[in-house]
């Protein structure tokens, strides 16, 4: 097992981004805390098996994502969908201004995006992961990641545009 100082340093470096990813997936503080803590517990047990120290970040995010998927399977509330990975035609979208939205509104919209797109879109906006890293974390091919990002972001844009339009008062004619 790594020493306390080494472990604390690792936690200090990664617990916040891991929590952000967990929260964006679960949208519940307690569940996000559990997932984050569970990830480090698994690291304490199995982290020594990782040979390449540069892969620590990816390893932690992959582990958290696996734990999240496992917990959803245990709850059996979320059926698994296999979506085709080819990039389908998407409608052209006009980016709407989202400056008035808060994080809960954004995450609420993200929750309505197809489930398979949610994790890549979260990692994209957390802004600390390259396409290759996202592919490693989610354990899918690079091309699939690019396709899921494009489709997931397009869906999110449409949902945000709809929410913003719905929240605006009707104009006086």
């Amino acid at each position, binding site marked *: *097992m790594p020493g*306390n100082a080494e*472990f*604390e340093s690792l*936690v*200090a470096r990664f*617990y*916040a981004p891991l*929590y*952000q990813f967990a*929260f*964006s997936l679960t949208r519940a*503080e*307690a*569940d*996000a*805390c*559990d997932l*984050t*803590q*569970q990830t*480090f*517990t*698994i690291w*304490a*047990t199995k982290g020594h098996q990782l040979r390449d120290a540069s892969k620590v970040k990816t390893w932690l995010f992959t582990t958290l994502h696996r734990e999240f998927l496992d*917990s959803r399977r*245990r*709850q*059996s509330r979320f059926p698994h969908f296999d979506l085709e990975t080819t*990039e389908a035609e*998407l409608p*052209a*979208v*006009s*980016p*709407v*201004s*989202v*400056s008035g*939205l*808060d*994080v809960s509104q*954004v995450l609420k919209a993200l929750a309505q995006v197809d489930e398979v797109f949610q994790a890549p879109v*979260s990692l*994209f*906006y*957390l*802004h600390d992961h*390259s*396409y290759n890293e996202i592919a490693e974390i989610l354990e899918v091919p690079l091309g699939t990641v*690019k396709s899921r*990002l*494009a489709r997931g*972001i*397009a869906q999110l*844009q449409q949902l945000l545009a709809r929410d913003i339009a719905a929240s605006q008062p009707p104009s006086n004619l």
Partner: protein
Amino acid sequence: MNENEAKRILLRYRPQTADAEDPQVAEALALAKTNPELARWLEALEVQRAALCANFQQITPPAGLKEQIVSEYAATRRRTALTRSLWVSLPVLVVLLINFAVLWHPRSLTGTALAVFKSQMVRLATGGYGMDIRTNDLVPVRAYLAEHHAPADFKLPAPLEQAQLIGCAATDWRGARVSLVCFRTGKPLPPGSPADLWLFVVDRSAITNSPAAGAPEIAKVNRLYTATWTQGGNLYFLGVAGAEADIKRFL
């Protein structure tokens, strides 16, 4: 590449990152330089992307999470170190014999099994389980668990016997059968939960670093206050959705 194809590709573009090295992104960016409408669209997209990124960065961990993770790890490490020092202090022959036994026993490979067990059982209690049977009678609970090859010969602390029994479930952990017995403390229940006091019982040989027989070890694990002890051939893990005093009340 036409304008619509470029837009689809640029959706996943983040300026000042390696995204621009992607050949498709590079081609779409080149098109934006010669297409004023696409350039305006890209500018609006960037404003939106920056705002969404800022939203995600607003997610902040609750106070104390880091400390909780670190302290749980330190406690696990202390237990492991104590176990090691006990081994080292034994006479050489005994140490050799024990080392021989340890080498032949898989427990030497998984020093934090108890921590993982505790963490996963807490997640089960607070998240995703369903009771197999609901009853306030311990007799059918024991019968059900025995029938499903889960520990049924457990001994409840006297105060826990007085708690309101709700039901039970049989589950697995790393190939070992685990009994989950659900109670109520009498306090208001957490939203959506039928119970707020959970007892897990597993054969102690399934947990590599089970504590020695003695007073229950009390610790906070994720959202629950918990007590862990061994008695006979079983390891007991009791969790409560409440305060430290609540767990002590049932020991």
